[in-house]
């Protein structure tokens, strides 16, 4: 098990309970959906994993890092092992596709040669080589999300957190993104994808963690769902 939530609650602004008593385990190599309506607490749960938010009570363990003992200077090291993508892509508009992907290695001080090799590798995997010199505004939403995925993957993370990754992508692009995530998972990377879109979840035989009002309402195993599909 690589991620463990123990009795986690998150309270915003003194009395707003975004997460309430969450207990959850994510295993290595899993593909899991985090399903719930807007405001259910999905994004907050993901933020707790990459330690953008700290739990108000309880403890989360990610790999060998614990929210109780992690020091500020260790958080960058944790984030180099956790990839995150968002609904709004969060690409740098003044950098082209290649440089956007390279960025996540540049900040770690990696060697130029290594960065170039690694980025080209990822671009090839994503079938984005032909877009490498273009800027985010010159490509489609689906392609932008692929660039964001590339930026996460180039660090070789053990887990990819996807927060509504298809929210700003047309249906065709969405399908492509989901297929891509499946491929990435098949190669061994754990995937946790937050979504409010029941249609996406229905068609896929993966674990589904349902959330509502900051609580986990259901947790359905992928294997069982496979049989019922």
């Amino acid at each position, binding site marked *: 098990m690589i991620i463990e939530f123990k009795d986690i609650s998150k309270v915003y602004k003194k009395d707003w309970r975004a997460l309430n008593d969450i207990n959850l385990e994510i295993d290595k190599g899993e593909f899991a959906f985090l399903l719930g309506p807007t405001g259910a607490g999905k994004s907050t749960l993901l933020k707790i994993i990459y330690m953008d938010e700290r739990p108000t009570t309880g403890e989360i363990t990610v790999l060998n890092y614990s929210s109780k003992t992690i020091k*500020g*200077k260790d958080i960058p*090291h944790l984030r*180099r092992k956790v990839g*995150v993508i968002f609904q709004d892509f*969060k690409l*740098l508009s003044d950098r082209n596709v290649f440089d956007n992907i390279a960025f*996540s290695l540049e*900040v770690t001080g990696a060697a130029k040669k290594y960065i170039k090799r690694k980025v080209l590798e990822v671009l090839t995997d994503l079938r984005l080589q032909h877009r490498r010199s273009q800027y985010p505004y010159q490509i489609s939403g689906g392609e932008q999300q692929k660039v964001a995925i590339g*930026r996460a993957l180039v660090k070789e993370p053990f887990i990819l957190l996807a927060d509504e990754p298809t929210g700003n992508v047309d249906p065709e692009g969405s399908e492509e993104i989901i297929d891509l995530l499946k491929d990435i998972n098949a190669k061994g990377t754990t995937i946790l994808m937050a979504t409010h879109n029941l249609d996406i979840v229905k068609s896929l035989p993966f674990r589904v963690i349902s959330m509502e009002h900051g609580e986990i309402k259901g947790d359905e195993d992928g294997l069982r769902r496979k049989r019922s599909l």
Partner: protein
Amino acid sequence: MGYAVNEAFRSFKERKTTTFLTIGVTTASLFIIGLFLLVTVNLLEIIDIFKTRVEITAFLKDDMDKENIEKLQKEILTIGGVEEIVFISKEKAMEEFSKELQDTPELLSAIKTNPLPASFRIKLEDRFKTKEAVAKISSMIENMLGVEEVRYGEKTVERLQKIITGGVILDLILGIALGLASIFVVSNTIKLTLITRGDAIEIMKLVGAKSGFIRRPFLLEGFFYGLFGGFFASCVLFGLYKLVTIKFHGIIFPVKELVGGIVIFGCVLGYIGSAISIRKFLKM
């Protein structure tokens, strides 16, 4: 490091007016600070010249014989701070006095006996030329056997001291006030940069950049404002100095100390200015 420098220079290019104003304000502040320092340095030099003239005169009682005078001279020399002591005999005093009265011989001829006392002229080491030290040494001498009266330029010593302390205090106040103004302006400019780079900062945090890496370009940007401000202020100051020395000679311009001081002070101010903004707006 190359990345940080590039980022800092990108800010300059993207916001030329702000950059110009920021460097302008730091230049102006550092120039004024430099100007006052220059005046102080020159003032201290003038005061130094005056200081060499500060001396204590101890008038002796008339009944002192040669032996007693020598004893007293040795005694005075043991006082800490006394550098040199010169004996002026009654005759020598009369001689000097006569010279002063050369133009009015009738006054001189009216003097039948020599009314002038013998005296010691006592020179002090420089660091004892403060009001307190001079007064203390004087009273020690005054209490010695055979000394009639002690005089020193109380007023001169006091006045010089006031000028020095006044000058230094003014420099300090100006340095602090203008320094704070520069810090304020730089930190505001850095705030602008932080806001325009908000997305990039968020992404940097997300992909695991260390806080030092994120901070560096902004610290460097602030540092550069100070560096350029210090450089330009030095240039203007030196130009002004060259202009003034055409008419007035003997003005001191300690190039290394003054230029070095202004540039380093500027860099420190710029660094502090950006550090303040980073602390406030980066929250890390």
